[in-house]
């Protein structure tokens, strides 16, 4: 066979004819292009919220916690409630990206990027609360085992310290996981970007070009990280739950807490994922990639975890009664019929009763319905933590010390601020990185070609 004609000999790639780019690239990268006015509006509101958030924290730190609504014997209030809420939100992300990955559930590919982003930002938000609820915020470093000449370390027996480690581990590991998944897409973006953006992508892409060795290392890494993240995600909310379960307060001191909290977390997490993805999909026209099929699968998870929560609620009451301890019984009786009955019934209605509607396929695939339902679920899950923390504390062993906790405006403003903080990060993410894992989508597309044969 003769060697190819000299004319065909090129000394650079430039001579290749430029093929049309992958449709997935175009569609999904379109999200990051340009700025839509609703986007700007949302971002603006979020940033204002973040400013008032930090202003409020500064105000509270200066004057002391008198400005918050604490009333003995309730020494934890909205801050811890909201902390647990946000930590919970994160869990769906890790579940989708790690656990479903291990189960080789391919449908996750369309939603895992969004979910992972959600995880990272939720955890970053949650991490604010244990900090800002410190009576002496400027002594935060006391909670860290740092070398000091007094040779005084920290109390490794304290659930709060476990929290410090669990949350930081969770935050860092999620970020690593998130980043590793992003690398191929960043490289893709790098190839199509110009100017400063290109520079940034180039650095972040750490020279990714999809060679066989790189893909191999990458896939192993994702596998191992999933293997690590799976027990981690189960442990984090267990540790958080032990903040309560390890104490003696009637209504807190229960062995069911760890699984109960984890199920609740996944439950609330999925609700949040749906609440975020439905608008994103709608606004940026990603219906081709995120389909009813995905939402239906997620609804199934919601149905499952909601049922587990329902069981946990029931079991809590049963054990309280079965234990025969008057303080426990009283505590739970007052949850349902005491001064905080409202939050309890919100919790039960939104978390257990409403989701049962998902037994119907019609509703599982009805996005407006899903959106509203998940909105309520988020409220319900917030109230779940409120019920657990506030009601239990307000009615414990020494009846003479009983009291009530009344939320203060300062705490509410911090609660709102935390949502803005979360929103801000997510909005910025939308413009920075592809909201769907393009390389994983391509995997599916190309497989499709294989079996579809020609193209």
């Amino acid at each position, binding site marked *: 066979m003769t060697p190819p004609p000299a004319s065909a000999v090129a000394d650079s790639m430039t001579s290749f004819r430029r093929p049309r780019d992958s449709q997935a690239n175009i569609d999904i990268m379109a999200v990051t292009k340009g700025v839509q006015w609703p986007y700007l509006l949302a971002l603006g509101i979020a940033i204002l919220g973040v400013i008032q958030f930090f202003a409020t924290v500064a105000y509270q*730190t200066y004057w*002391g916690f008198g400005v918050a609504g604490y009333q003995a014997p309730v020494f934890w209030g909205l801050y811890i409630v909201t902390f647990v809420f946000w930590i919970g939100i994160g869990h769906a992300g890790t579940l989708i990206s790690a656990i479903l990955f291990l189960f080789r559930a391919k449908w996750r590919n369309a939603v895992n990027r969004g979910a992972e982003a959600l995880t990272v930002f939720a955890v970053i938000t949650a991490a604010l609360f244990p900090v800002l609820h410190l*009576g002496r915020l400027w*002594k935060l470093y006391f909670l860290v085992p740092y070398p000091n000449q007094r040779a005084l370390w920290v109390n490794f027996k304290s659930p*709060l310290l476990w929290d410090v480690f669990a949350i930081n581990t969770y935050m860092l590991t999620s970020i690593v996981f998130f980043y590793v998944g992003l690398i191929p897409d960043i490289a893709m973006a790098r190839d199509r970007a110009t100017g400063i953006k290109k520079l940034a992508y180039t650095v972040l892409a750490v020279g990714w070009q999809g060679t066989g060795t790189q893909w191999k290392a990458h896939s192993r890494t994702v596998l191992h990280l999933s293997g690590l993240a799976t027990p981690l995600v189960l442990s984090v909310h267990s540790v958080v739950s032990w903040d309560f379960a390890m104490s003696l307060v009637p209504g807190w001191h229960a062995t069911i807490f760890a699984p109960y909290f984890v199920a609740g977390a996944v439950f609330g997490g999925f609700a949040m994922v749906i609440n975020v993805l439905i608008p994103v999909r709608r606004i940026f026209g990603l219906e081709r990639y995120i389909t009813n099929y995905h939402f239906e699968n997620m609804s199934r998870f919601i149905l499952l975890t909601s049922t587990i929560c329902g069981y946990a609620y029931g079991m809590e009451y049963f054990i309280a009664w079965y234990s025969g301890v008057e303080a426990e019984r009283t505590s739970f009786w*007052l949850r349902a019929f005491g001064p905080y009955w409202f939050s309890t019934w919100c919790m039960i209605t939104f978390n257990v009763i409403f989701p049962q509607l998902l037994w119907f396929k019609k509703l599982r695939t009805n996005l407006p319905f899903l959106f509203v339902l998940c909105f309520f679920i988020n409220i319900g899950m917030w109230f779940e933590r409120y019920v657990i923390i506030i009601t239990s504390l307000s009615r414990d062993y020494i*009846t*003479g010390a009983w009291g009530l906790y009344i939320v203060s405006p300062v705490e509410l403003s911090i609660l709102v601020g935390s949502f803005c903080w979360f929103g801000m990060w997510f909005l910025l993410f939308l413009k920075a990185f592809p909201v769907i894992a393009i390389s994983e989508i391509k995997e599916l597309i190309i497989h499709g070609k294989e079996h579809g044969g020609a193209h």
Partner: protein
Amino acid sequence: MPELDRRDFLKLVGVGAGAAATGCSDPVEKLVPYVVQPQSITPGISVNYASTCTECPAGCGLHVKTREGRPIKLEGNPDHPINRGKLCARGQASLGRAYHPDRHAGPMKRGASGQLEATTWDAVQAELIGKLQASKGSTVILGGPVGPTLDAVIARFTEIVGARQRIVYEPFAYEALRAGTKSALGVATLPIFDVGQADLIIDLGSDFIDTGLSPTENARQFADARDLKKHADGGTRLVSVVPRLDLTTTKGDKWLPARAGSQGDVAMALARAVLDRRGVPAGADAEAVQKFVGGTTTASAAAAADIPLADLDALVDQLLNAKRPVVLPPGVAHTASNATETAAAVMLLNAMLGAIGTIVTIPPPSDRPAPATMVEMQALVEDMKAGRVPLLLIHDSDPAYSLPGFADALTNVATVVSFSSLDDQTSSRAHLLLPDHSPMETWGDAEPRPGVRSIIQPTLRPLLDTQAIGDTFLSLGRAAGGAMPEGSFRQVLESAWSGVDWRETLGRGGVFGGTPGATLVIGQGIGDLSFASAKLDGPGSHALIAFPHSFLGDGRSASLPWMQEIPDPVTKIEWNSWIEMSFATAESLGVGFGDVVSVATSSGTVEGSVFPRGGIRDDAIAIPIGQGHTVGQFASMANDGAPGVARGINVMPVLTTATGTGGSRIWLGSNAKLSPTGKFRRIALSQWTDNQRGRGLAPQITLTGLAASGEGQGGEHGGGHGGHHDEPPHTFTPAFDARPGQPYRWGMTIDNDRCNGCSACVAACYIENNVAVVGETQAIQHREMSWLRIERYVGEGNLEGGAERRPIPDREKLGELDVRHLPLPCQHCGAAPCESVCPTLATYHTIEGINGMVYNRCAGTRYCANNCSYKVRRFNYWDYGNRNFPGMLGLMLNPDVTVRGQGVMEKCSFCVQRIEAARQPAKDQKREIRDGEVVTACQQSCPTNAITFGNLRDAASAASKASDDPKRAYHVLRMLNLRPAITYLAQVKRDEHEGSL
């Protein structure tokens, strides 16, 4: 926001950086050593000086604890016969008078502007001399009762300046009791009751434990007389005949809820019965006695008192069968129109019962002027109104507050001169102000009763430009050209005390002899009296009971923040007035806790928040005396941001203006018409509910149960875990040793049976440990900082309630008596739940078993407080340490105790500073700390010795021995197995009456 200093800046950095900003403590202060060391002062070592408490007329002896020339605490003088080293809450708090923000800084004069303007002593005295000369013969000198020496000086001064009148004024003057005693026994003095000598006390409302004539003394006598180790039968019995369950009654054995003002009838009935049985006492005018006692039968009395006849008959039998019975006359709260006759009847009764001379001492009358009667005071007010009093000198008293109509009358007095040390409603109306020293800065003496002479010596160099009232009168007198005694008041005092070894007397605190009994003429004058049932003015449906507030007395203690903040022992209300009424009454009005009702009497109307109660009759309401001041940082609403606004109700203006026999003041003389106003005012209630829901927090055991063998409290109660135990609780759940072989495991035993809830320990704790007073707005949010609180439960409790958003009012029932007081400091658990949850090791277990709290290490997660099963941890919501010790109050801080900063937890430390103080000498002498060398502040102050502190490792220590009582000893919440260092001894129910358990 104040200007930003370094601290605040760092705090903000802390926010900004979210971390890593090094917080820092107070600004740098320089320690300047003495150039020449005063002999008596060793820096760091406290010195005690003997003195006398002037907060109430009881005249308890003091040891003023000073550090570097600064009084920091008041404790009882152990040598003093009246209080034997103990001191009530009011006495403890009176230390604050020296450092009070309300103190007048110096002499003042009302200027042209109508405002008081600072001036000099020379100027103000010169002016006063002038006025004294000008109004010779019409000057009036008005003041509270003072010590003998000062009294003599004032008397002399009165002559010299030719004052028309000198009036000694005391709101709680007990005129009726004086008069009654005179009629019955021929001597017009206040009887002294040694209730400890009696085996049966019938209390017609004297409230002798709380607000009586000598509470600290009587409380001690009563507790000792009921000590179960000494008296297997439970000792003295107490039957109270009162319409409202007061603190004394809570410690009693039976409560007859007699109609308000009916104690007189009961007394007469008892007198009749005893007279029939025992006959006329020797030397008495039989005819007069018979005439006086008349024909009151138990039946008529029972009807008047609206109590079952059976109960009254039973009471009579009890009285006649008792060996050493005594009957106590009604106190201030129950001084009705027939108070004099009632008192006479009671004293006559005591005479017939043979109590006079043994249990009741009638001291000879003193030569000092007796307090004026109400009639005299009203006459004075009339004179003032008519402008017949151009010059009025007022000292040691605040009549503008405590005497209706006086304030208005003052406007017609050309010149009002006040010697008051604190700003009050009278001195704020004065034209000339010659402020007296505080009690801590002045010389003086007191003679609470004949034979007991007690010295007041200064322990603090005057902080302000004030002058001892004695010296003021001396110099005024001399300037007026009269022959006053030579020298300064101190020299006058010393010469008055000539004949005793001055130094030695100073050291001891006075000359303490027995009180001689006066020679009595029994039942001579009594014929002049004729008894009639009490009359109540006005159309109202409810009797208005105005009772002395446990801590405010006649209102003079209202300016002391601690007295405002420490919860009233009966209702647990802080910082404000309340209107007690029965649930039925509240229901009929359609009001609940905190709803404001208006109370209208023939004399006026007041409004206040309702406190519904089981412990009061349906036909009566009760309002505490002592609140409602419009002047003062703490007495008025000033420290809650509303200066000049009255704090709560001043009930005195709405009380009847009628007077009793001999012109005595009537406190219980008005009916009240109640009407809801629709308003609601939340009042600070430190204890949400007194229902212990059967949790055995404060169990009770009966005498029979005590005698029977078997189950002890530790098993029956404390959570119903574990069975009987032979060894004392502190050994059946030993603490986990921080380091084995330690000599000490500090612990405490608290005897609930001795505790009467008087809260002296709470006050002591506040002052010893620099505990911040938070004010009403914070107290309403349950943000009190008290390290030691006394909880009050009624009965074993049940499962009712708990769901309310408003506090659950108390569960007392009329006529039933089952109140348990539970002092609750940190339990210093051997397995403390707070320790395991603290991430920073800020709270940990010391090697001596104390649950230590390291403020500097605390980051403020508040987890410990959540996990503390006893809820004894307190959080610094604000920068209390800097903000809540305004002005000079900072000077009374105990230098041995850290002042806590914003955002840290704090709690009872077992007075660790006192432990260390005891450790030093022990170390020097190469020995261990002996039992009794460490005395915590609460233990030191407890009038009934209910608290014992000591080393639990030493089985011979008092605390160990005290807790060695398998029947009564228990741990609160024992089922949690927290191994607390505090062992409680359950209260004992002495007699089982049907329906009273």
